[in-house]
């Protein structure tokens, strides 16, 4: 996706310095990610879920019963909203959140120990399985947490909280020399 330089990232100030070499435990901040909240209408939840789940390039994050945060790495915001509206065929309301949320991707051998310092959810691989997602608190910040790979998690946070969450995560990772950079 083409980057629009008029669109400022919430962490532009925090991550302005030159990129660092990633350590074993590393925090990546997606410079540009598209997502929308899908609110399924009553009795259409299952149909909507299935319609979106059928799309391999769209990642569904559970937000509430009948509500998902749908993340795309290829679509532009308006394109994603249009596509979701078509997919859901009137069965859901779609709200663009591409500018309202920031995605953090954290990966590494100590990722669970780091996240356990803020998140009261059992992150054991057998319990929080690959593809799982949940709205949780990280410290005092509300996030959507998803496990996207063996030792990789994504945290999606409301934009206004992004700097606070960033500071928190860096402190949680201090003992493991966690590094951070924009991913593109």
């Amino acid at each position, binding site marked *: 996706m083409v980057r629009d330089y008029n669109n400022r990232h919430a962490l532009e100030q925090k991550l302005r310095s030159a990129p660092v070499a990633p350590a074993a435990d590393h925090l990546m901040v997606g410079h540009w990610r598209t997502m929308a909240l899908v609110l399924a209408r009553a009795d259409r939840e299952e149909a909507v879920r299935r319609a979106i789940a059928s799309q391999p390039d769209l990642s569904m994050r559970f937000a*509430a*019963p009948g509500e998902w945060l749908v993340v795309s790495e290829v679509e532009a915001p308006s394109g994603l909203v249009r596509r979701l509206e078509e997919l859901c065929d009137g069965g859901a309301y779609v709200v663009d959140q591409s500018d309202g949320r920031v995605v953090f991707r954290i990966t590494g051998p100590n990722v669970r120990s780091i996240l356990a310092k803020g998140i009261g959810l059992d992150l054991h691989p057998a319990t929080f399985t690959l593809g799982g997602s949940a*709205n*949780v608190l990280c410290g005092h910040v509300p996030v959507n947490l998803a496990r996207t790979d063996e030792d990789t998690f994504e945290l999606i946070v409301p934009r206004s909280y992004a700097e606070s969450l960033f500071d928190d995560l860096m402190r949680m990772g201090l003992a493991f020399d966690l590094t951070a950079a924009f991913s593109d």
Partner: protein
Amino acid sequence: MASLITCPHCGVRPKEEFAIRGDASRGRPEPMDSDEAWHDYVYVRANPRGRTQEHWHHVAGCRRFLVVERDTATHEVYSVVDAAEFALRATR
């Protein structure tokens, strides 16, 4: 109860993800119900020592209101259901 609540949508979650609204045992009166019914609904509580129903809001999770049925003396939880389901069941 006071450490963890099992959200029917999100699973076991820490208490700090929730905000407690209060008594869930009584439904909102109809517009034409008596003054007394409205007064009791807004201001009077059974406040039992024992089994009670309470609205817990999963603020930092699914943002659903839940009805937690539990014991006020032992903190044992008997059930947790979605408040909409609870309300619809009550009106049926």
